[in-house]
């Protein structure tokens, strides 16, 4: 018997990046434990990583390359497929892709990817060189970042807004909003519990009683999809009750910047002075005219007189109003009594929460992706960032605002770019197109993972689209829904398997983490890097794939431009066990501690002039989304359907691990007991959730954690696990034009879904 341990980094898309100590006995992965993280505060693993030994040897693994023999989409888990050799499969894929490029151009092929299989970075070089259609369907988790980015100025997606998790202990009040780390980011939940046990007030805003809400000092439960109304009510109270930190607002937000009444644009100096600059303006109350807003912002007092943020003025004949005054007028329409009628949160509690946020020594507002899954997720985080900034609760230990996902909030570390690409080839994303809504000459799909099950809404429309394509190839570990709709299926090794000593490198939690080989490829699978190289060679692009994964990782570390990695080499990281802390302060990272906000105005920008035409220059109230009680669909489909994220899966990864399937064996439709009783349903009955787009059939669980009018089918089950249908048949692919303007990218509103539920008699 031989036995050794190797550490690697989890690759599942919870964002957690746990360091895993893997025990390999006689070549088999037999145990996974938390590995010793370079920063011991992050030594942890969750139930998902613990099932990796089952996951990697699952019976669902695709045993060899496969060619479809039956009808596309028929059957389950490999029915209607025949095994073929790797050479045959790669020749066929390369040949089909080459013909499509020659006859219809590279844009006739769409590359799609999910986080559930392969490494996200794989096939991006091939895509960059081929130039296919990419990102052609829309994303998820992006609207909340669009809202924060546009307000706070961060330039990357999925970015750094929240303070680092261990900073929570410095917060007097922590508002966890639409975020359920107890069930989604279990290794980060500890930091909330530590803070609560040290005396922070933990407030959880969630329409349902989640495992995180269960541990809160205060659970605030707005009706689903009414987060924006609640946020506007909080802003109302803060402004009406004089709780604004005016000094902070004047110095660091757009509060004093003058906005033109005629066109909604910020007033510029050139508007009031011939030959004036393009600079923004404030009102000089002494001189009685518009004056240049200094950049960086000057102290809030021009001499002894405060720059006004209220009122309306005339500058060079133009009526102008400070942005704060516009916001004040907006939120004046959202008193707590109105908010109560919309959200169900009592007016007195809206007041109390606003006061708690504004008056605490330090308040952290941490969002999750629950608020992202509605059409106007960006407005919620815009209003939230505005609330934090106007109360001065940002940029200090314990104070901040942002998405507190697993993956963000740390010091950022830049790795080197890796091997070069030819001029013009780019791995950057490109604007998206949504199937059925834009002209689209896509004839083939190259899918990584279970795109059809996980990354599209309105699944029946998408099935029709896929059924009509000329060619579909899927790279995956397991037989999943999309593989079943493919012509050729290529079995990829998981992140644990490799033919080289390392697979890739990531940075997270202030550390450089190398993903090392743990075991040899399982069954007939091959690592993605090998598949990508072999395809590229067949497409005449082999010259761009001469570096081994180890060469790439070495160059990315050794050629990092980041001062925090100055002098650090690949060999150093490997000598440290594949995980090395960067050179940086011990104290938890505080985002925006320098109070520099890289927006166009260099301020927290709650007024976005580019959205004037779309009516959303301010975070206005919107109730046109499907979950809204006033939506036309509400009478026929009275229940809002969410898809909770669950402990045992990261999206759909780990859908097939028997240890957790013993605990949570099948999809269920959860709903309030009164809603169930009205439909004659009890726990264990089989029911159908349906709307005009589709249906899903599953067992009912009655649960008072959900308010009346809301139901849940957790995300990430596979086609064969439902009794019938699929929860993604029910969702809508509605595009918000604001998202396209802010980020050239649509965001799918998966929770913005109405259904009716009825019993099914077998």
């Amino acid at each position, binding site marked *: 018997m031989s036995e050794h341990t190797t550490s690697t980094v989890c690759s599942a898309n919870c964002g957690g990046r746990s360091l895993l100590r893997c025990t390999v006995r006689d070549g088999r992965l037999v145990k996974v434990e938390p590995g010793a993280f370079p920063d011991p505060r992050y030594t942890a693993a969750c139930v998902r990583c613990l099932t990796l030994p*089952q996951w990697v040897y699952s019976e669902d693994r695709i045993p060899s390359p496969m060619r479809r023999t039956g009808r596309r989409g028929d059957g389950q888990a490999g029915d209607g497929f025949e095994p073929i050799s790797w050479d045959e499969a790669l020749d066929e894929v390369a040949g089909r892709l080459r013909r499509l490029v020659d006859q219809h151009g590279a844009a006739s092929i769409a590359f799609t990817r999910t986080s559930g299989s392969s490494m996200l970075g794989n096939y991006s070089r091939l895509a960059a060189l081929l130039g296919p259609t990419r990102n052609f369907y829309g994303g998820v988790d992006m609207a909340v970042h669009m809202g924060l980015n546009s307000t706070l100025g961060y330039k990357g997606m999925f970015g750094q807004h929240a303070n680092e998790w261990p900073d929570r202990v410095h917060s007097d009040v922590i508002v966890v909003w639409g975020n359920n780390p107890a069930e989604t980011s279990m290794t980060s939940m500890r930091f909330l519990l530590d803070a609560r046990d040290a005396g922070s007030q933990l407030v959880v805003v969630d329409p349902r009683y989640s495992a995180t809400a*269960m541990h809160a000092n205060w659970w*605030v439960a707005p009706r689903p999809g009414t987060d924006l109304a609640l946020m506007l009510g909080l802003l109302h109270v803060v402004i009406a009750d004089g709780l604004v930190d005016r000094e902070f607002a004047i110095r660091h937000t757009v509060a004093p910047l003058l906005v033109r009444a005629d066109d909604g644009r910020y007033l510029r100096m050139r508007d009031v002075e011939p030959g004036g600059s393009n600079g923004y303006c404030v009102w000089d109350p002494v001189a009685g005219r518009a004056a240049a807003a200094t950049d960086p912002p000057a102290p809030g007092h021009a001499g002894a007189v405060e720059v006004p943020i209220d009122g309306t003025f005339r500058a060079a004949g133009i009526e102008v109003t400070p942005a704060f005054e516009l916001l004040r007028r907006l939120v004046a329409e959202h008193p707590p009594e109105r908010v109560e009628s919309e959200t169900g949160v009592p007016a007195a509690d809206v007041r109390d929460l606003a006061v708690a946020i504004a008056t605490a020594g330090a308040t952290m507002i941490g969002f999750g992706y629950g608020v992202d899954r509605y059409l106007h997720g960006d407005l919620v985080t815009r209003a939230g960032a505005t609330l934090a900034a106007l109360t001065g609760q940002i940029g200090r230990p314990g104070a901040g605002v942002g998405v507190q996902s697993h993956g963000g909030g740390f010091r950022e570390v830049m790795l080197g770019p890796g091997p070069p690409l030819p001029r013009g080839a780019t791995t950057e994303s490109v604007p998206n197109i949504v199937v059925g809504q834009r002209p689209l000459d896509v004839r083939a799909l190259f899918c990584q993972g279970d795109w059809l099950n996980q990354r599209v809404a309105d699944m029946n429309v998408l099935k029709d689209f896929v059924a009509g394509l000329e060619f579909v190839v899927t790279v995956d570990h397991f037989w999943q829904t999309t593989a079943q709709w493919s012509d050729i299926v290529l079995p990829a090794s998981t992140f644990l398997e490799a033919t080289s000593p390392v697979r890739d490198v990531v940075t997270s939690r202030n550390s450089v983490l190398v993903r090392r080989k743990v075991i040899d490829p399982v069954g007939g699978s091959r690592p993605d890097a090998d598949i990508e190289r072999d395809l590229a060679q067949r497409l005449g692009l082999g010259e761009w794939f001469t570096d081994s994964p180890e060469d790439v990782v070495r160059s990315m570390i050794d050629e990092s431009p980041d001062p925090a990695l100055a002098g650090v080499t690949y060999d150093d990281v490997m000598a440290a066990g594949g995980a090395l802390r960067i050179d940086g302060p011990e104290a938890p990272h505080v985002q925006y501690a320098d109070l520099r906000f890289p927006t166009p105005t260099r301020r927290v920008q709650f007024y976005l002039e580019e959205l004037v035409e779309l009516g959303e220059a301010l975070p206005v109230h919107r109730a046109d989304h499907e979950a809204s009680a006033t939506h036309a669909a509400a009478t026929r489909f009275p229940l809002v359907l969410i898809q909770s994220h669950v402990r045992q899966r990261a999206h759909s990864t780990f859908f097939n691990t028997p240890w*957790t399937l013993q605990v949570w064996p099948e999809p269920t439709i959860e709903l309030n007991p*009164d809603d169930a009783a009205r439909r004659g349903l009890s726990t264990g009955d089989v029911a159908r959730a349906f709307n005009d787009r589709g249906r899903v059939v599953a067992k009912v669980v009655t*649960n*008072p954690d959900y308010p009346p009018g809301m139901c849940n089918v957790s995300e990430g089950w596979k086609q064969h696990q439902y009794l019938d249908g699929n929860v993604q048949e029910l969702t809508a692919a509605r595009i918000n034009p604001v998202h396209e303007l802010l980020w050239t990218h649509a965001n799918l509103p998966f929770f913005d879904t109405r259904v009716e539920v009825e019993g099914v008699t077998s």
Partner: protein
Amino acid sequence: MTRLGMVVDLDRCIGCWGCAVACTMENSVGLGLWWQRIVTVGGPSIDTSAGVFPDVHKHYEVRNCAHCADAPCLPACPTDAIVQRADGIVQIVEDRCTGCRDCIPACPYGAIEMNEHEPVLPHGLEGGHGAAAVRPRRAGVVEKCTFCVHRVDEGLDPACVVACPTHAITFGDVHDPASDVARSAARGDAYRLDVESGADPSVWFLPASTALTQRRSGSAG
């Protein structure tokens, strides 16, 4: 004298089953059996609350062998297959177990599992997984939590303690007043299950007090 014990802080338990899966992996527990499980204290189904929205309540309780000081399973065993070490760990001696099941109802905690058939182990890991020192049991014998005795003897915490992502489980010598586990067990609100049975269990719980005192703002209307 050493008395090994465990304190589970239910105010930090999130019901993730990480402890139970780590236990299963470490000890090659077959599918269908659990040495440790998480009970939802609330509604009748897993993860559901009791009560009426928004006045609902649930919390999680971790259950495993309590390694009782006066363990009722010991005298219940007709073949002396259940033994107790000086440090309190209660063990089943597989060779002596006849599978009579007399111990199962004697346990107040439902902690003893019967191997009705050969253990069902995951695809590809049929030879067992986890610790090399712990081999899968055979059909016809009972099994249960050992406090990971093979780890304890190497100075390590049990697998469940290491795996818990919220640090809800503390393990050690409850007779050592300087230990974390002794301090937690001595807390005024610490309690044990079914003490009236006289078993003198070595697993303590700290109550899920936040859930009981929390403020709620919502409406069922």
